[in-house]
């Protein structure tokens, strides 16, 4: 198989398989988690829980009162990394083209220079978070193989994507192939690793927010 044939397979059949596994994985995991259900709360509510779950989904994007000075690296580098990654994944014109071909939906992208800069900032933020995980006693204590593995699983697609656009290190086709393959690996493994928090964090915030909203506490 020539390099071109490999690239064609990776962006065609390979991608379809990865997306299929990703969707099946996400569905399976969501069912595995949320079908467990929870008991109805029989205590008299202080206030109707209303939209408190949704409020918590929004509120937890920002640090809780007084917490930013206690963990600036986690909050700032973590925030930059999450926003940066979303911008690069969803606002880079070639990515939007791909989404369009898959779903028919498209939206205006951001200038490639801006994406270039965002990618560098995001990569740096990820490196900072890696160093912090090595040095911060709490993170070091909590970390398991999965934490290091999922860091690499997220970092490599970002790095190889940037390298391929910049035509660095490897020939463009080779780097692009590596990039797409690494994304496919990420897609397949995401539902089965801690990266699945990309989905469950919303559910968790909602549960916490609505349970406390029942008590009249905005969390």
């Amino acid at each position: 198989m020539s390099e071109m044939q490999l690239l064609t397979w990776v962006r065609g059949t390979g991608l379809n398989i990865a997306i299929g596994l990703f969707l099946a994985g996400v569905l399976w995991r969501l069912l595995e988690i949320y079908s467990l259900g929870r008991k109805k709360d029989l205590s008299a509510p202080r206030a109707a829980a209303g939209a408190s779950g949704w409020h918590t989904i929004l509120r937890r994007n920002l640090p809780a009162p007084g917490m930013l000075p206690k963990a600036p690296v986690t909050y700032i580098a973590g925030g930059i990394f999450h926003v940066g990654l979303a911008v690069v994944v969803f606002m880079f014109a070639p990515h939007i083209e791909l989404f369009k071909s898959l779903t028919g939906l498209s939206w205006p992208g951001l200038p490639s220079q801006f994406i270039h800069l965002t990618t560098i900032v995001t990569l740096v933020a990820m490196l900072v978070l890696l160093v912090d995980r090595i040095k911060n006693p709490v993170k070091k204590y909590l970390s398991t193989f999965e934490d290091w593995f999922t860091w690499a699983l997220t970092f490599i697609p970002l790095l190889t994507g940037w390298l391929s656009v910049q035509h660095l290190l490897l020939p463009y086709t080779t780097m692009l192939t590596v990039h797409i393959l690494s994304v496919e690996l990420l897609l397949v493994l995401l539902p089965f690793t801690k990266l699945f928090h990309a989905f469950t964090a919303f559910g968790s915030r909602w549960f916490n927010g609505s349970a406390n909203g029942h008590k009249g506490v905005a969390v």
Partner: protein
Amino acid sequence: MSASLEKGVRVLKEMIDAPIASYFNSCVNCGLCAEACLFYTETGDPKYTPINKVKPMRRLYEQEFTLTGRIKKLVGLSKPVDDAELEEWKELAYNSCTLCGRCSAVCPVGNDISYMIRKFREGMSASGNAPEGLVGAVNRTVTIGSPMGVKLPAVKVQMKHVENDFGLPIPMDVEGAEYMVMLSSMEIMNFPEYLGAIAKIMDHAGKTWTLCSTAFEATNAGIQIGNSDLARVIVSRIVEGAEKLKVKTVISPECGHAYTALRWEGANLIGRPFTFKVQHIVEVLGEFQELGLLKTEGFEKDKLTFHDPCQLARRGGVIEPQRKLMKMVSENFVEMPDAGFMNWCCGGGGGASAIEEGEELRLEAFKVKKTQFEIVNADRVVTACANCRIVLEEGLEHYKMDLPVVSLTEMVADHLQAKGK
């Protein structure tokens, strides 16, 4: 697998619901919860990171409820939870957690870690890994009627004393009274003035009230140890008492966990909604204040601050009433840093104060309160939880700080205008 471990594992499996599963899947080991926990901030020991306190439960969840976890267990990549591990986790699940809920308030993915620890304790207790002090407290509550072993005759003796001191009757078993007043053993034995304050306030507000001879104790060690069966027995006494006397409202005393046990867990424990209302005494006072039923005179002149009991404020949703009451009777009320929703725990809630072997750690964690008190530099601290009060007094004595701790209810009662004014 020992019989107790088997039981513990079975109970733990029953505890796992969609929120717990969602929380475990959302945790990214970011460690932010550590920064919210006084047992970590004051010791610097990462083992006290809140999410680490439920680590055995996390593995059990993965092994029993997820495909990948089952495979890992099958091929030996994930070892089963054993006795030694749970024994090791006893200190983390009990001594170093007061269920204060600060971790739940800061977790960026939204995990309610306090809820998880509360559930984990059910398995710990079922597997025989609960601390002696709490086991004793629960047994005394179930067999004798109160965690400190206080029986009805002792309550009656205190009622007599209070009647003599305050010149007001202390009603017991009065059917049809509007309020049924609960007490904590701590109040019966150490702070009987609380009962006098209640008599004074009810008389002043023109409300009918009663104690109940079959349900005077509000604290619920079953909740603290994590044994819903025993917690249910304790709550049921109150429900039966309140329904027998046909009261409209049951007043939870100045005690944080008693409030959580009765207000939020009670109906769920007995499996049906209550036929009466449950209010913390601070809520009742706040309501009386709103209705203009509290006519006060004079102000406390010295500098006062307020310590928020976690179960009342962060976990209970009562944050403003205590502040309005403070302002009604004090002219120099100052807030501590992080007061209200994010207040720091006294270090003895959730049953922790009943654990003798946890004392050293508790005093270490108390440094956070010490710092808060030093910053605010008040003359006295007011609170609305008898357990906080005792724990604060112990900590203050240990660090040789001269800072009297007083009850909000008693302070309000002290300022009520005499009748006929």
